[in-house]
């Protein structure tokens, strides 16, 4: 017989409800506390600062500084475009240890709150504020969204109420943090866009992209074309607030003897066009009343999309030039952009001369010139402005050359090569070397008219025996990309019994570089392997630089770094006095991970086999990545 069901009294129901609701709430709070997706709870249970900063840079950067503030003594503050001031460049400019406090959507109220906390809680030697045109339109727009809340330490709000919001937030934030941690890799992904140690956006992917021709850039980033024009205005309230907060930061710095500097960051010209000119000028004039500032607003950089990641964020390479100017202004050495790996001559960067320190006396005159510049550089037909200085270079690629009497079908013969050289001479071409490209981009050298680079891949003996005499005859310069491990191998492929097309030796290489006509550069040490001859069963075959299917990003980088180190070592030993800074991708193949890692491995200049003329852009190091080359051995016409 069924026993009578035990039902609940109302009192018992109510108590059960309270306990259940409390338990559920408790679970949510505990989970949110433990996962701490916004970095507000200051514990180390699940620390992932770059993820937390991506969710809310305001809170997570504070958490970071609470633990690491002794690592820094200087700060730069502002909205997201401030991120393009790399701390390494600022450190060099000021001889300091910078942290970049940028938070997305920051207005001057955020900046004032951050500055106040920094000055009261940290050692501060320099405090830089980057002011953007948006500061004339937005002020005090602090969001209620968890991703935009200022931490309680900076607003003076109570800790309990602030933390309660995060304790009771959607557990999906914490859950996503757990899920994404499994997907985290070396390259930047949408969920970890910050470099926690510098505070900057992690732009390694965008900074490793090849850039040259403007049209190609516009095709890749169509946001610059048909840029939406809107009627925008500065707001009286925003202006007042911005000036008030900036003055407060200025005064706080003055009280404590902290060096204070205002930078007015670059604005893309199309965005500027949305505002009436007199309002823009009034905004910056008011700014100069509050503090003199380094004016970078409208310079030639503003008139070329290639200097911008998108319509609002200028590139780090421009930020580096501004940093150089700041260093110069403050009596430090202004070294500007540093490209590692080349022969390291010291020079001053003329590109930073376009930035100007303005005061309330000089501001109107500066703006008169800025508007003149705008009139001169804005295309009348509405097309996209292209103010960057560029130079075109025809880079020719050769491999093995065969003496005419030994030539088989399809071989490239000495007489063909001689004919090419004769054509170059007849066309009055100027042959240049890899360092010339770098010098051009750095701004201290001009590429001559009808510039041609002659390049050879692999390092065949025929380059020495057959091509070198011809080059000498014409006085032509050329570059040979050698496979390091094959140098000097005339009979066998590496340590195998397989026959090989002979490669020249280090001594022969030295003889060529000593002539001043030849630059020896890298085609990798041993990452251009020939699969049929690589019969060691346990080892992976790397025919090109493209990562293999099983490679992790970190693992691949180690392989590439090791290969580069070996090349560097052998190079230093065998070709003393020559600099190694350029590399041609085996088979011309590359990826983002490849270009990014090569930059770190000491190759600011790399060559692809993408056809067409190479376009170099002055002050844009990305134009030295994957430089285009034409295969001269199977061309109908050698030159353009």
């Amino acid at each position, binding site marked *: 017989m069924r026993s009578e*069901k*035990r*039902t*609940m*009294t*109302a*009192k*018992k*129901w*109510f108590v*059960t*409800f309270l306990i*259940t*609701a409390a338990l*559920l709430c408790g679970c*949510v709070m505990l989970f949110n506390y433990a996962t701490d997706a916004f970095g507000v709870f200051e514990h180390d249970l699940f620390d992932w600062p770059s993820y937390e900063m991506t969710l809310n840079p305001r809170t997570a950067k504070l958490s970071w500084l609470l633990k690491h503030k002794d690592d820094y003594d200087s700060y730069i503050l502002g909205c997201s475009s401030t991120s393009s001031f790399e701390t390494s460049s600022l450190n060099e400019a000021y001889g300091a240890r910078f942290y970049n406090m940028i938070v997305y959507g920051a207005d001057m109220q955020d900046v004032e709150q951050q500055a106040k906390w920094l000055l009261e809680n940290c050692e501060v030697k320099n405090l830089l504020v980057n002011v953007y045109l948006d500061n004339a339109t937005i002020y005090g727009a602090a969001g209620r969204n968890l991703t935009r809340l200022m931490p309680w330490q900076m607003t003076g709000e109570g800790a309990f109420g602030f933390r309660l919001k995060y304790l*009771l937030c*959607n*557990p*999906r934030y914490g859950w996503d943090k757990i899920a994404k941690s499994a997907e985290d890799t070396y390259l930047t992904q949408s969920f970890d866009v910050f470099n926690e140690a510098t505070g900057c956006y992690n732009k390694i992917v965008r900074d490793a992209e090849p850039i040259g021709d403007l049209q190609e850039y516009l095709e890749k980033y169509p946001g610059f074309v048909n840029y939406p024009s809107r009627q925008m205005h500065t707001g009286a309230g925003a202006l007042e607030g911005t000036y008030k907060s900036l003055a407060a930061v200025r005064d706080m710095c003055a009280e404590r003897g902290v060096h204070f500097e205002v930078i007015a960051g670059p604005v893309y010209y199309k965005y500027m066009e949305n505002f009436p000119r007199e309002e823009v000028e009034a905004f910056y004039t008011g700014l100069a009343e509050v503090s003199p500032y380094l004016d970078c607003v409208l310079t030639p950089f503003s008139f070329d999309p290639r200097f911008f990641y998108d319509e609002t964020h200028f590139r780090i390479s421009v930020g580096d030039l501004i940093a150089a100017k700041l260093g110069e202004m403050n009596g430090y050495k202004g070294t500007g952009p540093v490209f590692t790996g080349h022969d390291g001559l010291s020079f001053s960067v003329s590109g930073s001369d376009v930035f100007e320190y303005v005061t309330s006396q000089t501001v109107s005159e500066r703006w008169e010139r800025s508007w003149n510049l705008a009139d001169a550089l804005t295309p009348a037909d509405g097309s996209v402005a292209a103010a960057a200085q560029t130079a075109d270079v025809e880079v020719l690629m050769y491999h093995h050359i065969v003496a005419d009497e030994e030539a088989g079908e399809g071989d490239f013969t000495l007489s063909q090569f001689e004919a090419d050289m004769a054509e170059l001479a007849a066309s009055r071409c100027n042959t240049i070397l890899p360092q010339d490209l770098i010098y051009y981009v750095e701004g201290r050298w001009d590429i001559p008219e009808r510039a041609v680079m002659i390049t050879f891949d692999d390092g065949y003996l025929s380059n020495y025996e057959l091509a070198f005499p011809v080059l000498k005859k014409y006085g032509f310069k050329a570059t040979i990309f050698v496979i390091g491990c094959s140098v000097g191998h005339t009979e066998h492929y590496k340590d195998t019994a397989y026959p090989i097309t002979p490669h020249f030796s280090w001594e022969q290489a030295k003889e060529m570089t000593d002539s001043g006509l030849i630059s020896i550069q890298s085609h990798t040490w041993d990452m251009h392997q020939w699969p049929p001859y690589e019969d060691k069963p346990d080892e992976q075959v790397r025919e090109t630089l493209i990562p293999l299917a099983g490679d992790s990003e970190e693992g691949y980088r180690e392989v590439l770094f090791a290969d580069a180190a070996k090349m560097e070592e052998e190079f230093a030993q065998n070709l003393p006095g020559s600099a190694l800074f350029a590399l041609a991708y085996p088979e011309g193949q590359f990826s983002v991970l490849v270009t990014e890692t090569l930059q770190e491995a000491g190759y600011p200049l790399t060559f692809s086999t993408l056809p067409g003329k190479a376009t170099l852009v002055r002050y844009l190091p990305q134009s030295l990545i994957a430089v285009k080359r034409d295969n001269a051995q199977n061309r109908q016409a050698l030159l353009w």
Partner: protein
Amino acid sequence: MALTSPEFLLLTAASVLLYYLLPGRFQWPLLLAAGLLFYCAGGGLTVLYVIAVALTVWASALLIEARRERRRLISTLCCVLNFGLLFVLKYLGFTLEMLGVRSGLSFVLPLGISFFMFQAVGYLIDVYREKYAPERNFAKFLLFVSFFPQMTQGPISRYGQLAPQLFAERRLDFEDLRLGIQLMMWGYFKKLVIADRAAVLVKTVMNDPWSYGGFVQAWGVLFYCIQLYCDFSGGIDIVRGVARLYGIDMAENFRRPLLATSLTDFWRRWHISLGAWMRDYVFYPLTLSKAFIKLGKKSRKAFKGRLGKMVPTSLATFIIYFIIGIWHGASWKYVAFGFWNGIIITASLLLAPSYERWKTRLRINGESLWWRAFCVLRTNVIVFLGRYITRAPRLLTAFWMMSRLIADPRPSELRAKLFGLGITKYDYLVIVLSLIVMLLVEFYEEKKGSFRELLAKQGAFVQWMAIVLPLLIIMIFGIFRADYISSDFIYKNY
């Protein structure tokens, strides 16, 4: 302060706790304080409007009692004053615009003004009719006007029903707490899980109806019907639940309107308190007025038979729905909405005998399930078409959208864009499953009676599950919905 905000829950919890801790005589002042706090938190100084409405009505009621011979004048003056205020705040801008005057006038509309004003005026008319003796204590009357759960979106309560409960001294009854919490959970389920989710799709389609074909637009309107019902009735459930926590029983405002068999039936089931208010304070006085009686006599002379008898009733019905229409808002589309309902209901009144004749001729059994299902479907289609009018950005757009249903339906577009209208596959699943649950409960209640009583008879585990599951579902699919920003109650400013 939205009914879904943590602040509202906090205010409710704190006031309920205090309510039962305080001695009985402090209970109603506590409710008053909570009401004013609630209103100030949401509307700031517009609380003065509430006080003004309460004060004029309270004073007029006392005056009516003191000077019965002038009661007509007093009540008329008071109504003119209050409805005048409502007119200025809500309709003046629209009226001037209609007259071609560009005034640029705009007022901060006090939250729920249409609700609390109708409630107050209803009391005045009842005092005028000597249904009740007027309330002497202003604070008590103010509480009647500003009882906080119902302030912003109704229901429109009657003095005789609500006031005695408000002022009674109560002791804690856990049954009230259980019922209150259950009602609130049911309301939050409808509001947060269904309505707020459907709202995303509605917004996507209705913000830019011009870029869609007729089917996608209809899909948007269909989801608007779902949203509106779940949002409004869910809100009312929350209100009734909160009131119940203080032991106060509030009249139902919805009685399963989806199951209505005619448009008249629909309006008896949808927003019941508004319909009842209109019936008692507008329809009856109108039909019993001298003018209407005269009209009746004339029409019976002019038209023979049924039609002649129906003219005054039809006219009054028409007027009622016109008022209900513009009660919703100051815009042509609400005027049209009033006409839409008025025309259909008047027409069905006039044509009722013909329908009956057809039904007999076609040998349709009016009691059969199929006939009832047909009627329900027919009613829902009419309601659905009416929603085009209220939800379209503008009146003309509504007609244009209806025409597109035939002229440019683009059914393939609906298939292609189904998951590109702001909500995901998973959202559809949540909405559909939730609707099934809701409809099953409604069917049960329509046929068998209280679902809650059924639940109370179950064993402890089932009852516990009936706590855990709703809480989990509301939390996961409601509160923590992706990008959770609860859209405010749609009816709040009406």
